[in-house]
């Protein structure tokens, strides 16, 4: 299938979970409903689409302007040599999404990182804890509402140097 046919095939296969199809500087982007993320990605992982690699799972904070967090998934198909970007928005008030643990093994750490940095909870994740910051760190650093230079020391620091 050519690239346009592939996107059409995906769109028809996923049905009404797809909200929008876009092209961003040459990248194929699918915007889907947040509650359809897990079944949609499970379908994309299987034949005939074969997106075997979950390249990346991250989040963008649009809470101030648009009241949502946007989860961004990057998939890669080895057999077809194409990438795909999937976006799904969750409301900023109580950001939660379905976990991808069980589909891809690296989802565990990727989702822990998004939880740590943005506070998005992943339902069904076996061990949702902070990954990059430490126990006792309050807040979620990559949120726009978190001040960039607000340090939370773990041990008392000398200030008069």
């Amino acid at each position, binding site marked *: 299938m050519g690239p346009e046919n592939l996107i059409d095939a995906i769109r028809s296969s996923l049905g009404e979970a797809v909200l929008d199809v876009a092209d961003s500087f040459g990248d194929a982007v699918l915007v889907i409903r947040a509650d359809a993320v897990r079944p949609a990605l499970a379908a994309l992982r299987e034949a005939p689409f074969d997106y075997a690699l979950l390249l*990346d799972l991250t989040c963008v904070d649009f809470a101030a302007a648009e009241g949502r967090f946007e989860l961004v998934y990057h998939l890669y198909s*080895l057999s077809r040599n194409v990438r795909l970007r999937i976006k799904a928005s969750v409301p900023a008030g109580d950001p939660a999404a379905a976990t991808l643990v069980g589909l891809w093994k690296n989802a565990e750490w990727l989702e822990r990182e998004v939880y740590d940095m943005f506070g998005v909870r992943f339902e069904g994740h076996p061990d949702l804890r902070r990954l990059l910051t430490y126990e006792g760190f309050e807040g979620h650093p990559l949120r726009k509402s978190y001040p960039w230079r607000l340090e939370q020391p773990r041990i008392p620091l000398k200030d008069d140097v």
Partner: protein
Amino acid sequence: MEPLTRIERQARPESMLLNMGPSHPAMHGTLRIMLELDGEKILNAECEIGYLHRGFEKTCENKTWFNLLIYTDRLNYVSPLINNLGYVMTVEKMMGLAVPERAQLIRVLMSELSRVSDHLTCLAAMAMESGAFTVFLYMMKAREYLWDVIEFTTGARMTTSYIRIGGVRADLHPEWRGSLATAIKETRKVLKDVSGLLDQNSIFLGRTRGVGVISREDALSYGWTGPCLRSTGIPYDVRKAHPYLVYDRLLFEVPVGEAGDNYDRYSVRMREMEQSLRLLEQVAALIPDAAPLPAGPVIEPAEAIRRSRRTRTAERIRLSPNLEGSEKDRLAGLTAAAPLASVPAKEDTYTTMEGLISHFLFFMRGKGIRPPKGDAYFSVEGGNGEVGFYIVSDGSDRPYRLHLRAPCFHIVSALEQLIRGRLLADVIPTFGSMNMIGGELDR
């Protein structure tokens, strides 16, 4: 006290909990591996990362597009030019910049030098931690020659910020061919020596053959890329799959392994270094010698500035040695022609009004490079695999969101599975063969 870590909660009462790291000679910086041991056998393992989390992504949201280039150097710090390259190519994708051919060739040269340095450092550390200290010394020696080549051109051995948006900062050093030839020769000698020391060494084989084995399905499920994925037999290399710069015109092979064990990861890296040296020779033959600077009188900068108050200076200005290579006559072949994409030439900045204004417009906050709104993802082949940058731009002078797709993040997430059931001593070569780089893992 309530046990916090998963391994403490799951531990059996009769086993021993051992903590490796975060400050440990073999932990490549800062990684904490907690092990539940029955004698020497590992029953359970847990990795704790984040000890080098330096807030890269948050910092990038607060720095201008040009300024944050220095932070990209410090991501995968054993191959810093490749991170530079990934970032600038993502921005160039968004801005639609066309980079001149000479700059592309120089970028390939620098990338391959970085790649060889990366593999040398990885294998040197892996061998040293397994006990082969000589290999470490030999490979560090080879790395010095490669860093000499980088230093003569860019000014710094490691964190260079040389590859800039639109092109590169300066032209190659006049004697680059000689130093590159020496570096390639010395590296080949070192690779031959190390091959002789390790390839059929029964101790090394005993520690790496059949140890840390991962299947193809698991490697794909973990999102592995790069030499670690290729050691399982899957020939995915971003330079071949989605060629960028001039890689589609160059001849090189992508070595693959079979078993996905530590030895295959070592062997794939050794063979990749040979392919990178081959690429270096091809690129060196493709880069034409820089045209000599125009003949004629040369004046000192102070004199030129004094004269420029009255008339435009037609004579060439002698720049200071640290600006060597970025003379105005050279820059046309090294940076994209788009206005405000890269730092203007110093001769213009100091002698003409338009030059000074364009310099300010480039550097001042609120001005400068402005990619259009939208998001883009671009990846290059780094030492560890696919280094991807996902950048969201809102049209302002700094990124709205910048995310690094770190290859070793996915590779290290499989560590717990690879060492479970093995002996304590197997942790070291397994972890060493993964090439965990803290700056990339923790960002």
